[in-house]
């Protein structure tokens, strides 16, 4: 059993430790504050909505919370009157950690 402890098991414990550190860092920062993501989504959609009509169903959000930065990806399909049908407008915004 000691042998197993030296190899695979120990690696999985350090993976677990690292995952928890990153997750809890984010959760402790966010504690008590309103959800940032929906607020950002509304503001960004409102800004784009001033110029074009956006179907809320055609908005996709992805987040990847990292150690140093979190990456929020907002993917918005904007219909155009051009022959090509639909253009896609995508924006990737990097949020510094301090934003929680």
């Amino acid at each position, binding site marked *: 059993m000691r042998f197993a402890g030296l190899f695979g*098991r120990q690696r999985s414990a350090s993976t677990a430790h690292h995952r928890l550190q990153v997750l809890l860092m984010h959760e402790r920062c966010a504690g008590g504050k309103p959800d940032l993501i929906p607020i950002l989504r509304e503001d960004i959609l409102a800004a784009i909505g001033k110029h074009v009509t956006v179907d809320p169903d055609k908005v996709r959000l*992805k987040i990847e919370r990292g150690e140093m930065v979190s990456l929020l990806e907002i993917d918005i399909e904007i219909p155009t009157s051009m022959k090509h049908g639909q253009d896609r407008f995508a924006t990737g915004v990097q949020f510094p950690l301090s934003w929680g």
Partner: protein
Amino acid sequence: MAQVVVVTSGKGGVGKTTSTAALGAALARAGERVAVIDFDVGLRNLDLVMGAERRVVFDLIHVVQGTARLSQALIRDKRIDTLFLLAASQTRDKESLSEDGVERVIRELRPSFDWIICDSPAGIERGASLAMRHADLAVVVANPEVSSVRDSDRIIGLLDSTTDKAKRGELMEKYLLLTRYDPARAERGEMLCVDDVLEILCIPLLGIIPESKDVLHASNMGLPVTLNNPASAPARAYNDAARRLQGEQVQLVVPSDKTTLLSKLLGRRAA
């Protein structure tokens, strides 16, 4: 049209979340479209066990309250593209779950999936009650241990009285998933054996998951047990249970881990 399954137990810590992730991944790997929903609002963990904790944007409460669409809140698994997670909220409490909202979520999910697996919180309060409300079938997770079996009996009573299916006068299908089972200890009379538990609970057996170090290893890695090491004993047991859910007749055996030469020399079974 999806089958709605609730994974429930009454008692905490018996393996509901582990089992939800493992069964969901096993069904999805078999080509089924699966949505797993975490009903443990305020104490979510299904995201962590499935390795999606960094990717949660919207959760069940957002969808229930109408601030996000279902399509935006469903997180597609990175390894299996027919497996989706709907996370619970970490910051709200269970009172935020409205009956109407949950009903709407289940109704909207049904046409797009083959399986909707609801991971119930422990206890018998609101969260647990809403998780089981719309179920077509219940998986009762129990450990071979007195308090777990007693709580399972209580949950079986609630499944038969408080669910929509029960209220319509229909029979709720219930299956036992016995987890953390140690055949050697049961054989020695140190642990309730399968027959003891079945005799008390009187529901058919879906599977027996052996006690195994692979379960902790999988959760450390953020992988469902059935994906982390499909050849491991608990993974095979969960895969068999998933096949039984699909209606297959699978012989009931308790898979055991293979012994390695080294562990044989040391006189112990490998993990």
